[in-house]
């Protein structure tokens, strides 16, 4: 049973950004792993951001707003 999420990769870590991730801020998560405890998550990914599943759901919602804003801007620039 997963209780914690480790953000193991963000846009800032990507050497080449796919069209999907272009324009997103460096902190935007691209890859996560779930673990059964905070200790296990931290041990598996030292130095990476680890949070409870519950907290991550709120974090993901905030990231979703960032993603939506960037997509909106991309659409806007296409018009020009």
């Amino acid at each position: 049973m997963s209780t914690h999420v480790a953000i193991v990769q963000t846009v800032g870590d990507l050497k080449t950004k796919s069209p999907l991730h272009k324009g997103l801020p460096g902190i935007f998560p691209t890859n996560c792993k779930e673990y059964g405890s905070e200790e296990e998550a931290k041990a598996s990914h030292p130095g990476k951001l680890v949070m409870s599943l519950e907290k991550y759901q709120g974090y993901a919602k905030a990231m979703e707003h960032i993603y939506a804003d960037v997509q909106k801007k991309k659409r806007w620039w296409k018009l020009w």
Partner: protein
Amino acid sequence: MLGGGGVWAQKLSDAQGGSLSLMNSTTGVQGQLFFNTTYNAYFTWSFDRWWPFGNPDPRYGFLIYDEFNGADRIQSLDWGNAGAATSGNLLNTGVVNISQSAASGITDMRTELDSIQLGTMDLYLETLISIPTLATAGDDGSLTIGMSDNASFSAHSTCTDGVFFVLDRSVNGANWIINTSSNGTATNTNTATAVVAGTWYRLGIYVSASTQAQFYVNGVSQGTIASNLPTGASRQTGFHYASNKTVGAAALNILADYFCCYGFYNGQRVA
């Protein structure tokens, strides 16, 4: 009695009912009926599981099924970019082949990419597939099976929104990887369940509303993922099979025998 009239009456009288959780905790006997009050639908015990009995009232849910017999693979689903029909055999009727040979290319078979929005309904999908030849370092690529909204080539089968199995030699050898992805952020878990070339596997994905996705191979759970389940208002996805080829010129194929899916909205969705 020929036609089963007597058995039918007996089974209906045997029918029991209750919530989804009661059904899930109940082991039935072959042919037993259970009226699921959460879903407002009958289920029948089939060998080792409860399966929807007939088509549900569409106000509450749906059951779709495709044996891939038709020329355009359509029974109750409209698959775009359908794979090529290939010969069936005694146990595998109507097989399609999703095949990609050239590197940096994709061949896929999919419904409308954003046809499904998760979050309210419980959804179970199941497909029977076989990988005739596994990828190697010289002929590499990745395969997507499940729900994904990416119809473009992706070396590691990523997508914006999806819930799916991946087979990617460069990441987890011949073992399945289970995935969720929501607005471009993925959670994936490497399983220890290996694929043997040419063997048929029954892959299942059960999404419980907005809570989690559970993944099955031949009925055995491969784990659950609760983060990055695509459930937001713009997080739609679609049913998808894809072969993404990265290196070499030999074909990387998915043979698909059947696809079925049922979904229940956990209530009456329309008056």
